[in-house]
């Protein structure tokens, strides 16, 4: 399944490393990344493929939520379909 991930937090060193290491450890493939800092807020969007992972979507989502809570990152992961539908005619 293709999913969009968003990560937002006050900017600091190591956010990308932390998130991407976790994804790699779960076998989730990153297809595309965009990242910027807006008014001191780190904002990253990733297009990922969860079908390469042996973990279920719910497990990946929980692991990301847990990582978000422990490192004070706001992380979402949602099916990509919804974004394409809302922003492309």
């Amino acid at each position: 399944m293709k999913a969009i991930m968003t990560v937002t937090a006050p900017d600091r060193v190591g956010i990308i490393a932390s998130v991407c290491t976790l994804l790699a450890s779960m076998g989730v493939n990153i297809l595309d990344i965009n990242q910027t800092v807006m008014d001191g807020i780190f904002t990253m969007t990733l297009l990922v493929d969860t079908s390469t992972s042996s973990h279920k979507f719910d497990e990946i989502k929980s692991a990301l939520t847990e990582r978000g809570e422990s490192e004070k990152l706001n992380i979402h992961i949602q099916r990509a379909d919804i974004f394409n539908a809302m922003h492309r005619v």
Partner: protein
Amino acid sequence: MLSISDIMQTVNMIDHQHLDIRTITLGISLDDCADPDINKCSRKIYDKICSRAKNLVKVGCEIEREFGIPIINKRISVTPIAQVAASCSSSDYGIIGRALDDAAKECGVNFIGGYSALVHKGFTKSDKKLIASIPETLTQTELVCSSVNVATTKAGINMDAVALMGEIIKRTSEINAIGCAKLVVFANAVEDNPFMAGAFHGAGEGECAINVGVSGPGVVWKALQEVRGEKFDIVAETIKRTAFRITRMGQVVAQAASERLGVPFGIVDLSLAPTPAKGDSVARILEEMGLEICGTHGTTAALALLNDAVKKGGVMASNHVGGLSGAFIPVSEDEGMINAVNKGALSLEKLEAMTCVCSVGLDMIAVPGDTDSDTIAAIIADEAAIGVINSKTTAVRIIPAKGKKAGDVIEFGGLLGSAPVMSVKESSSHEFISRGGRIPAPIHSLRN
């Protein structure tokens, strides 16, 4: 990949602007559950609902998690029970009401709609039995919703049914006020409405259907804050663009639910359904257009623009649009409406005018407990006339608040919120309602 700003816009809509799917409603035909023995009929109804809807909540929650979109309600609508029970010899339709309630609880849904009768032209014996049982059934059940259609543009207004519903609402309120929140009187009721309390699975529908109602007053409100002071052309365009996005989300969810449940997709209802939460109000959208408070002069025009732009934006986003489609103006479920009533800016008369241009009608209105049944019936007649003449759906969901007078507050809790008790005219409508008979269909109903 989409741009960061597009992606973050969607995430913010869900996180901060109350964007959600208000309901996934599974319509189920009960035509094959008829039986002369009411106990057997109830059993067939219970079994069919439980078998068809057993995965509804599970699939709804699954979609919620994967798509990251809250789905507030999972509901069931069924064939109007007055039709299903027509061959039953017993008069105690409450047994069927309880079977519906038990089935809804077994499936884990929030509400089940269809304890209904369509009497716009006349009553069958079964219609009369069902309507007579409404007050007790709504008291003895928790999740059952009831609706009665008393008028259509094609048939005119059944004034006997209007008078009867005045009495039924009054009787329901005397037993249990919350019962009235689960009872709607319609003109031009639609067969694929996913919203409660008025959902039922119409006669023209198939075996089952998935109907989805979207919501997003908060998103529209936020979008309009970005174009403050601009001309109405820009306002309409902004609402259209926002409604398109909201509806596309509904369409994606409806398709996913349809595929996973193996049930045909019915419609997406292009709705703006408010909640009592701050920032999720239709009234606040109207105020954002430049009105000091909802209910002041200009409110009807603002609502007309909003309702039309929501439909125009939404219609291209879904391959089948239906239901009620438009902005809802339920007083108790809208923080801004409650505020407007409390400040004396929004009266019953102004709400009635607003129902000419919104999606439904007088919704979740509390009136003094001593309001008589003729006055309630006359309020229904006025609403039905607006629906019949304008070829639109109108409805009345009115709650006579026992022991309370104008200015008091009645609490319902949850999505239903709390309602300020609104004053009604004191002059009598008794002789008008006592006439009975039918108000003929308007000339423009003759379109063949």
